[in-house]
């Protein structure tokens, strides 16, 4: 356990000692807040809620998170520091988990830094803070799922760009599966029960469901299973690469 915590600390520190973290967080903040006020017409909605703010997250994450995660493994393999990592007295799973958790915590910090939005919406009216909490939870879990997928693609190749593109494509499919227009196409191609099952594997479905304010075990299990599964696959791939 302590090995994981030390690794996590090391990773996090390296984030904050490089300009990457600051650039990322600032872009994250500007894009989430900017889309809310300008694209989402926050003031015109006259709704004291952060629904509009969270509406854009699945799409913003599509680019932001692969950007963070693309280098996680690819860079280590590129620079050879991955060899160093493997000499440490830790298991593959531990290494994978630490890298992932460090990235996830970093994204969590970025999310928390949007706290002025919470203050704004409480100042302007009386929002349902239970719903806001659930939405943040949903966004955090969804971000974790995106990150897990990106970790996998990052471990597949040394090339960060390929990792980025692959990750975007896979995450895009996951989001699309729950998107209204696409579900119509599915409805036409497959019988109802199949297209329903397919839709349940979408980020948007569970994200929307969770951010309403109902903590449903199905949504939690979905995100956690994607994260868990992603990490296991990540470890498997690295094992293969290690052997060669």
């Amino acid at each position: 356990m302590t090995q994981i915590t030390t690794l996590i600390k090391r990773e996090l520190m390296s984030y904050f000692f490089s300009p990457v973290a600051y650039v990322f967080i600032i872009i994250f903040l500007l894009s989430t807040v900017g889309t809310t006020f300008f694209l989402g017409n926050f003031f015109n909605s006259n709704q004291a809620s952060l629904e509009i703010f969270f509406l854009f997250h699945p799409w913003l994450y599509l680019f932001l998170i692969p950007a963070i995660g693309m280098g996680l493994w690819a860079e280590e393999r590129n620079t050879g520091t991955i060899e160093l990592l493997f000499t440490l007295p830790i298991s593959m799973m531990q290494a994978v988990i630490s890298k992932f958790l460090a990235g996830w915590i970093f994204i969590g910090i970025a999310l928390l830094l949007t706290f002025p939005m919470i203050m704004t919406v409480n100042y302007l009216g009386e929002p349902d803070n239970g719903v806001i909490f659930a939405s943040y939870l949903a966004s955090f879990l969804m971000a974790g799922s995106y990150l897990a997928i990106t970790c996998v693609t990052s471990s597949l190749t040394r090339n960060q760009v390929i990792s980025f593109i692959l990750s975007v494509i896979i995450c895009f499919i996951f989001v699309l599966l729950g998107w209204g227009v696409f579900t119509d196409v599915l409805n036409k191609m497959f019988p109802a029960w199949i297209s329903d099952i397919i839709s349940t594997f979408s980020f948007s479905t569970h994200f929307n469901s969770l951010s309403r304010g109902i903590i449903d075990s199905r949504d939690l299990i979905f995100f956690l299973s994607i994260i868990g599964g992603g990490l296991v696959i990540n470890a498997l791939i690295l094992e293969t690469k290690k052997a060669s």
Partner: protein
Amino acid sequence: MKKRQRLLGSTAVNIVLVLIIIIAINVIAASLYFRLDITEEKLYTLSDGTEKIVEKISTPVTLKYYFTKNLESLPLTYKTFGRKISELLKEYQNLNPEMIQLEIHDPKPDSDEEEWARKYGLTGGDLGNGERLYMGLVITQEERELNIPLLDPRREQFLEYDITHLLLQLSQKKDKKIGVLSSMPVMGAMANRFQQMQGQRNTPKWVFIEELEKTFKVETVEPSVQEVPEDISILMVIHPKKLSETALYAIDQFVLRGGELIVMVDPNSRVDPTAAMMAQMGQMPQASSNLEKLFKQWGINYQPNSILGDKDHPTRVNAGGNTGAVSFTLWHTLSGESFNKELIATRELEDMLLIEPGGFTMEKTSPLKLQPLIRSSTNTGLIESFMMRYSDPLTINKQVKPTGQSYIIAGILTGKLTSAFSKRPDPPKKDDKDKKPPQKVTLKPHLSKGEQDSKILLVTDVDFISDNFSVEQFNLLGKVFRQPRNDNLNFMVNMVEFLGGAQEMMEIRTRGRFRRPFSHFLELEKAAQGEYQDAESKLNAQLKEVQAKLSQLNVQKGTNKIVLTKQQIEQIKQFREEEKKTKSKLREIRKLLRQDIESAKTWLTQVNLIIVPVLLILLGLAFYYIRFRKQSN
């Protein structure tokens, strides 16, 4: 090489296994799940009232929800609302899954489902481009069926109420009956010939009656009645004017037999059509009501021609002309503190509007115990109602001289009563022209005192429950919808349901909202309007004066073809200048009205965008500085 291939192969297999496990986990999770509703108002959890009603269902019920959720031109509010409806319906099913079946249909055009929707009476609404929206609910139980043809997004806060109500109606075999004895056309009226000549149409039922009809059967009771029919559990006496001895006796006996009575009187009703007609014909209008004989017997102290003015709860009204907006003390805008916090029926009420109400107090010798529902402040005074005809709001306000006494405007009275009559009065003489033989009716024996506690709800205002002052009407997709403007309707229906024992419905009625507006902006607007509206109306009046003078001069110029004197030309110039100045001042005011809000929006946007990034940059620089110092050391 082979070893590598084998490794790759086994990895691939492992990966596929992991994927299958993920899918399996999620499929299993779909069947065994738990939920926790952390919304502030438990929006997605049904209230206790609904639980009680749903648990009592003993015969299977099917809820059929028809919603065209995939319509292209479906506005977002309908989409979200439609989704919320299906989620809420699922909650109903979860409460009693053995007895409740839920079917969700998407009636696509020309499909079987659309046919079924129409058969069930769900008309849907035209979206204007040929597409038809369906968002209706049918519930069936054996052969009985009830429906809500089109669920209204503006009735969002009553969604649970409407659905549970439908369920209640379906399972109830007998509804309680309300009898309405009213001098006003609350049950709707056909326009008589005089009114028809004036172009007036039939008046519809008042909205509060329609709401009550959802839980009760509502019938008219004629003022000529000798005895209140046996099957009536609640009698509503609304705006009684000079009722005959027979009618008073009927009410008296009804109460003694344990019937529940609601009396609504008003010292000056604005909505009274007879009074309006009399005023039009130049007669002294009789707009007040009273139950003098019975009130005296019951120990109720009520002045039928006195209006209560409350300086702590005035309402901003437009007094017209040069006066502009005035805080009128005779129209009460209530706040939370006016209501009895101990009763569920009134605990949640906030915002009621009373129009020239009266007020009552109890005599010390009254046999009845009072439970106040609405109480005025102590900053009140009574005004004679005739003053309304001759004075303007400002003068009337000045006439309200507080005595430190507070009055009850609505209250529940309980206790054992004695009759105000010694025996049944003689029936009114029948007209000789009446050819019909007198009907043989067996009337009940005279009761001199009540066998059980009587229950009376007394309200000293009638106008507040008229449509004008309680609801807003609007058209939506070809249907007329009504939305409550304030808590007036809530109060009335709550109280009747409370008396009628449908308490479960009352618990549901005061449920939360899905919508939360920017109250900060609303407050800014209100404050701004207060300040600037006065200035604006004064300026408007000024403008009208100036324009009138201008047109006078112009007329002179036009008709008489008199050459204008230098003086007159100067005058015209001056007036035009004044007109310009006043108009620009008005524009300034309109700008100021929005200014506070616009500036708030700007600085909020800036704060959100800039603060944290700036802090981060500072933090980053700090880290760098530390690192450099470390390195240089």
